[in-house]
């Protein structure tokens, strides 16, 4: 239970950076933290006390104390999606820097409303 709370705390730290920081790279870092927190939360959900990895290495092996494999499969997908979004955000950040010569969003804001 404490582990799940620690995860949510990590999520809040990342969200804090996204909400209050003004540097674009810092916002992306905060967003990555949020992502890690959610992935870890999902992985913790499948943990089983005294469990072993869900991999069958020899026939006739006992499978009763395998940990839950489903969250692992889903988090795998989520990690890849996270990498994809981070790469795209970085590309946007780099082009913004090339145009505006700064990462500070208060100097960038040209759009109104």
């Amino acid at each position: 239970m404490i582990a799940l709370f620690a995860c949510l705390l990590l999520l809040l730290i990342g969200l804090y950076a996204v909400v209050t920081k003004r540097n674009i790279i810092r916002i992306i870092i905060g967003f990555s933290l949020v992502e890690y927190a959610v992935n870890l939360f999902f992985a913790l959900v499948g943990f089983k006390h005294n469990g072993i990895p869900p991999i069958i290495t020899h026939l006739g092996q006992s499978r009763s104390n395998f940990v839950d494999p489903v969250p692992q499969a889903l988090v795998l997908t989520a990690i890849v999606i996270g990498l994809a979004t981070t790469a795209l955000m970085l590309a946007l950040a780099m082009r913004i820097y090339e145009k505006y010569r700064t990462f500070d969003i208060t100097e960038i804001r040209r759009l109104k409303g």
Partner: protein
Amino acid sequence: MIELYVLLAAMIIAALVAIEIKDLLAAAVALGIVGFSVAIMFILLQAPDLAIVQIVVETLTVVFFAAVILRTTNSDTTVGGFRRELVLPTVVYVGFGLLFLLVAGQAMAGLPGFGNPTMLVAREYIALGLERTGAGNVVAAIILDFRGYDTLGEVTVLFTAVVGVLTIMRRAGRKGQGAEGRG
């Protein structure tokens, strides 16, 4: 499970460093520390598949961050020092965070206890995985056979991001538009 909590504490400290340190490259490295701690955590959680993917993804993430930061700038002029305009948002945010933790705590009381997953479908996957798909790795059986359609989606998201990066890095978006502002 004491090592789990030690790692979580280390992660939170590294996360705080990552969002507060002035040098962006150092912040990216701190982010890397968090990511690698997550990978170790996955090993502790008996998820070797996740650990491998997390390690390679984290390496690549730090490489991407470093590539961008080295091509632009690593000094962040917006952090450090006391800023009056940040006081109110921070207080509001801390309030929101406490409220969120309180509500989430209430909600999580309804979850099955930590370490005792229900495993409704998981049991079937474990029982049928080897016989029906022929794969010894149950996680691989799920991601590429039982739920292969998800993986098709996942690969497509990555493809989308690659095409997106190539799109955004074009020299000029419109014809006849100069390469202004570039150096």
